[in-house]
Each structure stands twice: as structure tokens, then as C-alpha cells.
């Protein structure tokens, strides 16, 4: 049964697109059929992070409006064949996205893929609510920083009220992905630690992605960090998060690029 996953955060720049690309690639290399949908109409970037910017012909709005078939708009990844991308429109008006249109596209994608991953735009406007609307599972990407935590709290409220599942009285599965975490700074009390963020947001932890120069290096090259440097700390953290999404119960650790104490084990399990 296909699962629809939304990667959301409220705040911009916390790593939604990076995480969508990295998790999507990790799930696909594990043998799943994965499609990534960019919902950021007018400010699309998933194509660029995936290195597919020159292969975009049709986009989500073309499909929603019936100007193109879904198969024409999907871009298959050249590195991992089970990974596809449905780009957002860069030029069209975002009001062209309708709830019915999106619903139809997602239903069709669910027949062909195991994971439909929706990369949400920042904010709490229509684009963000449309991206989360049909989700079974949500990943709330949060930086250990006050404004990001506050916005995540707001997004969690929206997930509990504005999604189809919530409206039916069902429960949407929510996970926290803590990105750009610096264990050394948290240890010195300069950065919110994991327990603080978890206590404030009260949702289960999917993973901790350490602050890593590999993330920028990968996006410079148009490759998800999990493909560009699979042994890097950030990539390993994303691979673990992908395994947890697939139901594996792994202890949450903070991988480190340096040989240090910070890759220590945390006796916490992701739910």
C-alpha cells in the first residue's frame, strides 16, 4: 500500500527540500519505488537539488490542468531508476493548483509508487496546506532554534486540523526530523538540545541530521547527499531515518564525520 508523506516545517530554509531529496534517494536505493513532488509553485528547487533542472518539460500544474499526462511530466532519476520527480511550475500562478486536481494526481501516483513524497513550500498558506492535505505521514523538519521550533508547533497544529485524515477523525502520523544539529554546541548549552525540542513539540523523533558541509557540497553538484556521499554523517543519518520510515526500530544516534564522542548512542527509539 502506497504511503503519502509530506515534508513540511513552516519556516523556510530549515532543510525540507534537502531532506526530501536525501530521504527519497535513500528509500529508492533500498528498493522502493519513490516519487518526489515539488509543491513550491513559483519557487521550485527540488529539481535543482536533484540535478534534474535541465530535464523539466512538464510540471505538476500541467498535469493537474490536463495539458500533460502524468507519465510525460515525471522525470526518472538517472542514478536510481526507482526514483522519480514531479517538478513544480516555475511560472504559473499557484492558484492553478486545485484540491481536486492534486487529489487526482496523488491517487494516480499511489498506484505506481510505494512512497509519494510531497515537498511542501514554507509558510502556512495554500501551497503548504495542499501539500499536507492527502498525507498519511508527515515529517516536520526543525532546526534547534527558537523560530523554527515555534513554526513547527504551528505546522503540527495544521497537520492535526487541515489534513484529510484529521478531518475524518483519523490520526496523521507525525515525525520530527531535527536538522543542522551540532552536538558539541548543544553540549555546551549554546543550542537547544534534543530533549528540549522533543519535550516542546511532543512528536516522535525520526532522526537527527548533524550540521555537515557535505549537505552543501551535494546540493552544489545537484545530487542528494545520500547518493553523493553515502558514508558521510548526514547521509548515514538520512539512511537511518529512511529505515525508520519503513518501520525498522533503530536507536537514534547522531553520526559524526569526525572521530569523536558525539556519535554516542542515545537510548531513544523512534516511534
Amino acid at each position: 500500500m502506497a504511503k503519502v508523506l509530506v515534508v513540511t516545517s513552516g519556516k523556510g530554509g530549515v532543510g525540507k527540500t534537502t531532506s526530501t531529496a536525501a530521504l527519497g534517494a535513500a528509500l529508492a536505493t533500498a528498493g522502493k519505488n519513490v516519487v518526489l513532488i515539488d509543491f513550491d509553485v513559483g519557487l521550485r528547487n527540488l529539481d535543482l537539488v536533484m540535478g534534474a533542472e535541465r530535464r523539466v518539460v512538464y510540471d505538476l500544474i500541467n498535469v493537474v490542468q490536463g495539458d500533460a499526462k502524468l507519465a510525460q511530466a515525471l522525470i526518472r532519476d538517472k542514478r536510481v531508476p526507482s526514483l522519480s520527480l514531479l517538478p513544480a511550475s516555475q511560472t504559473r500562478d499557484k492558484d492553478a493548483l486545485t484540491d481536486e486536481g492534486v487529489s487526482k494526481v496523488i491517487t494516480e501516483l499511489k498506484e505506481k509508487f510505494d512512497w509519494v513524497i510531497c515537498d511542501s513550500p514554507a509558510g502556512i498558506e495554500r501551497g503548504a496546506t495542499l501539500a499536507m492535505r492527502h498525507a498519511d505521514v508527515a515529517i516536520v523538519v526543525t532546526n534547534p532554534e527558537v523560530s523554527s521550533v515555534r513554526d513547527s508547533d504551528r505546522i503540527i497544529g495544521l497537520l492535526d486540523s487541515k489534513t484529510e485524515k484529521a478531518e475524518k477523525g483519523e490520526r496523521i502520523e507525525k515525525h520530527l526530523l531535527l536538522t543542522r544539529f551540532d552536538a558539541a554546541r548543544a553540549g555546551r548549552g549554546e543550542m537547544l538540545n534534543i530533549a528540549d525540542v522533543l519535550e516542546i513539540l511532543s512528536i516522535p523523533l525520526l532522526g537527527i541530521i548533524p550540521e555537515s558541509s557535505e549537505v552543501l557540497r551535494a546540493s552544489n553538484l545537484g545530487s542528494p547527499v545520500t547518493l553523493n556521499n553515502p558514508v558521510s554523517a548526514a547521509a548515514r543519518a538520512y539512511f537511518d531515518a529512511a529505515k525508520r520510515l519503513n518501520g525498522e526500530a533503530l536507536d537514534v544516534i547522531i553520526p559524526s564525520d569526525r572521530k569523536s564522542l558525539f556519535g554516542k548512542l542515545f537510548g531513544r527509539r523512534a516511534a
Partner: protein
Amino acid sequence: MKLINFFKRPSTAPVARERLQLLLAHERAVSGKSDLIAILQEEIMAVIARHFPVEQEGIKVKMERGEAVSTLEVEVEIPTPMCPSFPLPAKPAKVAALVPGDSSEPKKLGEAPDRDELAYDTAPAEMAKTGTEA
């Protein structure tokens, strides 16, 4: 707290945490109030108003989000002379329901008053009258 350690730069993370906890407690109660909570508040108010003269401010509906269960707290303040038929404590009546998730159970709570509403719908004025007299 600022003087814990003269040798280190003071920790700023605990301040961040405290500020967030305060702010979010407020935001969840005010702006974070979902439509559902607002609807619940109105419906509960309507039902209770049939039996007791209550003020709009006398009813507080609050949702607290927890990891495994969330709590829906309904607090109804009724002037004690108005509720002689029930042995209510002098404190405000407090009804708390454990809610798995945020949105499944509140509906059930919403339904319960609905049934009352139906039962009394035929003669609401009379019921209200007997309620205060009894």
C-alpha cells in the same frame, strides 16, 4: 541563573527553551485554537445554557497536546445557587476527557451534548424551568 558559572560563557539554550515553552503555551491556547475547539465551545455553551444561566466567559475549552494522549479540558463555571439539583462542589465543575490524538475523541464529546439537545428539543423552555426549580 545567569551567575551559575563565571568561567564559561553562560548557557543560552535554557533561556531559549523557557521562552519557547511560555510562548507556545500561550499560542496553543489562543491562536492555536483550532476551529474544532471553537465549535465545541459554542455547542457546549448552547447545551448548557438550556439548563443553567451561564456566561460566555464561564466556559473554557482547552486542548493540551501530549505524546501518547492529548487532553481536552472543558471547564464550566456555574453560579452555585443556580445548580441546586446536583451536589456540585463549590469549585468550578471540571470535566476532563482523555483524548487519543487531537481530533478523534472531541467529536464524540461533541456528539454527547447533541443527544441531550435532541432529547430536550421538544420543550426546551419547560426543561430549563424544571431544571432551575428542582
